[in-house]
């Protein structure tokens, strides 16, 4: 991340419940696997995991920590982990789709 500060991820990140990419079923899978998966954005071939920085501010969602450093492309209000461009991000395949995958070191499921 040339020019950006080195982001050593000690603080938590969170994702907010939504009807497609962060359902309560997905949260349960994340909790059981201790992994967060992410598809490529529309029109992109590069799968990535995206999350908000900081703890869950309330409401429904999940909060996690990871020892994998977020990628270039992150911003103060958005963390991203791209497969291939970020050491530690793994590739997972399911139903013919590629997912970026990061392991979590702690996980709090607030969307049971």
């Amino acid at each position, binding site marked *: 991340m040339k020019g950006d500060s080195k982001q050593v991820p000690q603080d938590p990140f969170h994702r*907010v419940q939504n009807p497609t990419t962060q359902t309560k079923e997905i949260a349960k899978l994340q909790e059981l696997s201790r992994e967060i998966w992410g598809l490529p954005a529309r*029109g992109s071939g590069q799968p990535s995991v995206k999350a908000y920085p900081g703890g869950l501010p309330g409401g429904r969602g999940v909060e996690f920590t990871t020892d994998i450093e977020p990628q270039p*492309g992150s*911003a103060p*209000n*958005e963390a991203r982990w791209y497969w291939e461009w970020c050491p530690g991000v793994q590739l997972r395949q399911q139903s013919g789709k590629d997912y970026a995958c990061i392991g979590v070191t702690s996980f709090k499921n607030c969307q049971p």
Partner: protein
Amino acid sequence: MTVRVLRYDPDSEVVPQAIIWRSLRYCTLVIREGRDDLDQYTGASFVIGNDIRFDLRVYRGHIHPEVTVTLYLPEEVRDEKQAAETVSTVIREMAIPISAVAWRRGQKFQFGKLERSPEDRLRESEARILILKIAASQPRRSVTINKLREEVPKYFDLSSIDKRRSPSRKNEVLWQIVVRNTMSSHTTGTRTIFAQGWAQKIPGGLKVTKSGVDYLNSIGFLDSSESDLSEEE
């Protein structure tokens, strides 16, 4: 160059390149809701010329979501110099002052932290465009000075300097004086919204002309198709 609003979502990944200390409503009235792999957002898509595409978005988890907006460029724009130049072009063509940029790629940051430039406050050059935007948002594209005073804080996050009492006019704070000066008839010069033909005075306020609507279209605040207004309207 003209900033044109696009009615459809980008067909590729977009990457955050800058955060602007202005609300989405300050930047454009053509706002839609969207959703991607991160979350839901409100935002708008734009194009400048044939090759610059960009998005403004406010996700639900945005920092200071009422007063900031994030500028995204397509992921294809990977060259740092090109990205920086494109961000500068977007800021300039949308008539956003450089002091409003709270973060841009290449600057150090801490996750979850965003600081406004201490230089950022309402100045007359920006107030001219702001009152034009507010007037264009009102019925009949006209607004009174009293209504402007109500509306400005809804569009612009007034800084502590803006809210300081005027040393010369004790009953007004600085931003109110800036707005009044921008409106006042003694304000002359080629850069006023009246001299530009973008607005005309009406009793107690101003009305945006077709030329003014065209200007607001050209900076992406309004949609081009809405500019087909007669001057009498």
